[in-house]
């Protein structure tokens, strides 16, 4: 390989691939940061419950919890640390989702994508975030000063609060609310407030219309999403996230998705509605319009803008996590039912090591399933074009809502008539899993045919 000719600008060009140091450093940080975050969630979420803190005070500090003066301080401190960890988790996962989405999408488009900043371009999102921070923070003079500044934080709050009820593992949930899923729907509605505030406070008619249209989109699609969520709630008999997961099993034929054909329909409706709520293609007209004309984000720059995009990409994780909870069996580990967890916990106040190991396993299962659904969302984005506003409304009210109602009523009947018939669940599960496997096999065959038709091969080089 010849060196660059003398007339090119003098910087040392990298000849060939990244040097080993860079690759190792990127791997270390790329796996290290999520590992640290997951470990923090793993350790902190079970331990921030009052019982555990009492056990900690009793066993480790050797004090009596009832009279320990700093007990409330410890409660508050542990919750605060967990909250901090979760918000960071959301932000960093959002950044890494950007990286992953861009790499995947670029291969779908026959190009390489980010590959200079760190091995595989892993730190590009850090560079983008730093760039956005360094931009000038413009606020229009006639904009409503307080609301303009406050709007991004509504959106950020709506996003961050969802992490409170995400079940990362068997006991790894910040707050096991008995209205968990209801809380999730309620809290994501804050995003609408943020959008409307952004549109209105920008003092631009076009921004206002863009914001109103986007808010209309998000609000309309909450109806089919809510009705679709009722289907697994009916099947589980509870609104609590952990309870919904516990009522499913670990194997595919025990997931909600496959034990009830109407849950399959409900999953599709839920998936489409979540795409619309997250402003993802094919429902990103409010944002795409902002390419050509101003949208609700037009007046935002620098960090305020960064917050909106952080929330959009972080929402992928939340959407996927909720879908996994409701339909894909959550963190359920194969071969490890509730009795295995109880046995591993031991009799003492603080749980034993085997229990922690099982928690890590359950967290891994949850993360893997969430990443799978996240990839589905990314895949759909880069394949489909955008839907127009009126078509979007037609889709919601004429297609999704009726089907959601049908699924809901049918699930009611299903639960009453068939769910208690012994073997009904397993039979349905087996049939649906088998048919899904057949469909997947056909899909893989079609994909292979696409490759062969163009004379290409599977080739994962040229990163």
């Amino acid at each position, binding site marked *: 390989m010849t060196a660059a*000719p003398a007339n090119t600008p003098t910087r040392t060009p990298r*000849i060939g691939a990244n040097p080993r140091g860079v690759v190792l450093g990127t791997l270390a940080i790329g796996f290290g940061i999520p590992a640290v975050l997951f470990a923090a969630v793993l350790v902190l979420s079970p331990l921030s419950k009052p019982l555990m803190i009492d056990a900690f005070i009793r066993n480790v500090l050797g004090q009596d919890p009832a009279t320990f003066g700093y007990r409330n301080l410890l409660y508050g401190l542990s919750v605060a640390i967990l909250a901090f960890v979760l918000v960071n988790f959301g932000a960093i996962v959002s950044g890494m989702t950007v990286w992953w989405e861009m790499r995947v999408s670029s291969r*779908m488009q026959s190009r390489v994508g980010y590959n200079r900043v760190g091995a595989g371009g892993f730190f590009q999102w850090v560079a983008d975030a730093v760039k956005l921070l360094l931009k000038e923070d413009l606020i229009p003079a006639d904009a409503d000063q307080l609301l303009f500044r406050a709007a991004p934080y509504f959106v950020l709050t709506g996003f961050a609060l969802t992490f409170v009820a995400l079940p990362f593992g068997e006991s790894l949930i910040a707050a096991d609310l008995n209205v968990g899923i209801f809380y999730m729907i309620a809290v994501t509605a804050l995003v609408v407030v943020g959008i409307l505030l952004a549109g209105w406070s920008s003092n631009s008619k076009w921004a206002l219309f863009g914001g109103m249209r986007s808010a209309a989109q998000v609000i309309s699609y909450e109806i089919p999403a809510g009705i679709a969520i009722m289907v697994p709630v009916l099947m589980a008999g509870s609104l609590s996230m952990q309870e919904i997961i516990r009522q499913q099993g670990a194997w595919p034929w025990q997931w909600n998705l496959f034990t009830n054909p109407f849950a399959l329909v409900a999953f599709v409706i839920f998936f489409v509605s979540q795409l619309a709520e997250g402003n993802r293609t094919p429902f990103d007209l409010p944002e795409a319009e902002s390419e050509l004309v101003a949208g609700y984000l037009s007046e935002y720059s620098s960090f305020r803008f960064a917050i909106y995009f952080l929330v959009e990409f972080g929402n992928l994780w939340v959407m996927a996590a909720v879908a996994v909870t409701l339909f894909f069996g959550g963190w359920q580990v194969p071969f490890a039912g509730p009795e295995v967890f109880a046995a591993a916990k031991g009799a003492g106040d603080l749980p034993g090591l085997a229990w922690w190991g099982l928690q890590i396993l359950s967290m891994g299962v949850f993360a893997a399933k969430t990443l799978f659904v996240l990839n589905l969302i990314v*895949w759909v984005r880069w394949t489909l074009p955008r839907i127009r506003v009126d078509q979007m409304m037609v889709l919601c009210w004429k297609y999704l809502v009726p089907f959601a109602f049908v699924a809901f009523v049918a699930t009611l009947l299903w639960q009453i008539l068939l769910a208690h018939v012994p073997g009904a669940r397993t039979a349905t599960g087996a049939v649906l899993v088998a048919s899904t496997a057949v469909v997947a096999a056909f899909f893989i065959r079609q994909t292979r045919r696409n490759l062969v038709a163009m004379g*290409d091969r*599977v080739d994962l080089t*040229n990163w």
Partner: protein
Amino acid sequence: MPNTTQRGYVGHIGDTVKSFWHGLSITASYLLRRPVTVQYPDRTPMPVRDMLPARYRGFLEVDASICTGCQACERACPIACIAIVLEKDPANPKLRAVSQFDIDEAKCMFCGLCVEPCPTGAIQHTREFEGSQRHVRNLVFRWADPMSPFPVYKVDKNAEYYPRAQLGSLVRAKFDAKPWDARGPKFLPPAPPAPPAPKPAPVAKPAVPAAEAPAQAAAATTPAESK
């Protein structure tokens, strides 16, 4: 092919599923194929200029040893970016020499019209394209030295080919002669015209009434100040 004016509710759903099936399988298949990107400049299999076709219209190169000084290229250029000056050799008035042969590569649009009329092929497009310079004046390539003009080539009508330096070597030599961010040649702008000599302020004006004298003095000074 779906005709949307006639499909009903169910047909719409069926078309959607079918078209999504095809679309998603195609993007999935592309995920597994090799991207076509050639990662210039440092991860190419060989230097890009060797991967270019022979007819590539890169920077122009003039081999002065076979230039006949016919100025056909100068006339053919649509933008007049070639400047050729011939002069008679003082020793031998019959011989002519080229004392200036400048090509402004910044103006050049790489059209190739100058290459066609050249009788010997002295001027050619090379495959060099990496010629960025910091100062645009450094893009004027001087193929003749005014201090030592080169004699024009006498065309041998029976020759089968005209001996030429390797294509691209002369251009590369020019690139390597100085770094890319070398300072440009200083062309001083022409000296501005000398300002007119200022009118001396009227000191004493005899035989003028005192009321008019300040007015006249004011009128005399303001034109001089405004100059």
